């Protein structure tokens, strides 16, 4: 049989190599993703089996480590019976209010810094960036002293307030606002529109993906929060879910089932949100590092 050589041997080889390369790279991506997923699978499996089984099966390697032999809802029941839903509700309320108010506050600031031309704009922007470069955790302890002096502890406003001032959110939205042609605002000004109207009718509708991404940044901050909540809440009923988990872990060091169940519930919520909204997150952080 007479095989005709490909028109461009070099290209053929490159193509062939790249196909093998693709298989290798895909395999690598799969392995890496599984490595990150494994602890989550173990967490979910451990949620649905008794603690004794968790450790009986992990002392020797077998597939029951990731697949319960006897499924049970006992751990979830135990978490619910001990008031975890109350803690979860606290977390949800804190995160939701933070996202809503935080988007409004960040968008307003970002709008002024990107669109409204006023003297000292650069200085104010520099100040905003610098002040938020110091992470909140670093000053949480002295701030907690101030909050308790003001009598602002053990309530929702105390938990929500720190989440509202987010430099990354302001920075991200400013970048997006800068990307909108200034002619749009100019034309609206000529037609007699004021700044609030331009903000609400032109800028916000055009930057919806960035607003969603910003919402995710604000959400993750509050959903993760741990140090601040332990500083400003003293009663179990006011605890947010991460604090409740840490307390369960410290208090019941032999029964890990409840810890697994609570962690799994707390992980499922952001996972579901992210699965739907991840692309907005990627799009919105895209601008953080580019240009200025």
């Amino acid at each position, binding site marked *: 049989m007479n095989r005709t050589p490909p028109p461009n041997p070099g290209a053929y080889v490159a193509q062939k190599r790249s196909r093998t390369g693709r298989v290798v*790279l895909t395999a690598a991506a799969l392995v890496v993703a599984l490595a990150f997923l494994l602890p989550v699978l173990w967490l979910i499996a451990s949620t649905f089996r008794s603690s004794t089984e968790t450790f009986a099966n992990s002392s020797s390697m077998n597939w029951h480590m990731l697949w319960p032999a006897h499924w049970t809802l006992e751990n979830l029941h135990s978490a619910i019976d001990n008031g975890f839903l109350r803690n979860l509700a606290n977390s949800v309320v804190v995160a939701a209010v933070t996202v809503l108010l935080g988007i409004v*506050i960040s968008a307003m600031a970002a709008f002024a810094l990107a669109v409204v031309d*006023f003297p000292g704009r650069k200085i104010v922007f520099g100040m905003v960036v610098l002040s938020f470069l110091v992470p909140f*955790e670093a000053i949480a*302890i002295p701030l907690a002293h101030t909050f308790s002096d003001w009598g602002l502890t053990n309530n929702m406003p105390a938990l929500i307030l720190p989440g509202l001032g987010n430099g990354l959110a302001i920075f991200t939205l400013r970048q997006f606002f800068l990307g909108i042609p200034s002619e749009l605002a100019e034309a609206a000004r000529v037609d007699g529109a004021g700044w609030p109207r331009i903000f609400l009718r032109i800028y916000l509708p055009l930057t919806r993906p960035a607003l969603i991404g910003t919402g995710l940044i604000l959400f993750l901050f509050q959903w993760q929060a741990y140090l601040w909540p332990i500083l400003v809440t003293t009663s179990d009923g006011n605890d947010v879910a991460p604090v409740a988990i840490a307390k369960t872990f410290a208090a019941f060091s032999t029964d890990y089932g409840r810890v697994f169940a609570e962690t799994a519930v707390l992980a499922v919520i952001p996972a579901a949100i992210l699965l739907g909204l991840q692309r907005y997150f990627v799009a919105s952080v895209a601008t953080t590092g580019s240009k200025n």
Partner: protein
Amino acid sequence: MTLTTHHPESTGAKPPPLPKGTLQRRRFVGNLSAAAIFLTPALALIVVLRLIPVVQAVNDATHTSLPGSTLPPRYVGLDNFTALFSSHAFWSSVQQTLVFNVIVNPLQIALALALAVLLTQNLPATGIWRTLVFLPAAVPMTGSAVVWGIALRPDGPVNAALTSVGIHQQPFLTGQGQVLGSIILIASWIGVGYWMIFLIAGLNDIPAVYYEAAAIDGAGPLRRFWSVTLPLLRRPLLFVLVADTVSNFVLFAPMQILTDGGPQGKSNFLMYDIFHNSFELSDPHTAAAELLVLLVLMIVIVAVQFRLLRSAEES
């Protein structure tokens, strides 16, 4: 063009009904008041959340009081700092913090970059792999910390895996030589996917023409990474480096939940030590002094990183 006078103060015979100067001034005032209104909530938050605590910390750090005493705190100037600087425990905490950060930050960024490059290669189901790697960042850190804490127990699954390949049980969180590595593992499992997303976004921003040009010039994958990707990714990399360093300097939950700074102070990083001094030892004054040291240290490191990358960019 003599009919429209741009400068009302110039010698125009009859000023137009609405001189441009007035318009401009009105616009200027309007912009200023609009900016003030739009910025007020954010600036108020900066004052409450960033300035007041620093003032409070300076105030706490320069006073002293006896625990439980009702007497008002007494001003002592820099005494708390001199006491702190002569304390062996403090310097050991500084040293642990620096060692941890010198290892964890380059490691996390290298991993995040490698993953970002891998997951922007147009592979099948890339979205799923990205989501899985990013997932740990969404799990609250307390949850990740306790799950890893249980996984790394002597009778946990990690040791089970090691035993099955013939390695003895390891004291991951209780061994002096291993606790640092274990915390790095936990922090990286949580953080790498998060920083990867920023780098993926940066990689997507690099125009494809650069790669096409490089390919035409016969540059291989490594050469393209070195000569195209890295230089054009400098800004996102700088952002991630600074943000990652800052967040690792204040890492707190894993130590508070899993190690209490131990064993033998090997995971007693500054942020945990400050919390420990403030609440478990009821010494907010030493804690505040230590906090100011941490703040200064962080600001210096961030400034150096900016300077280094800026000079790299110029050359």
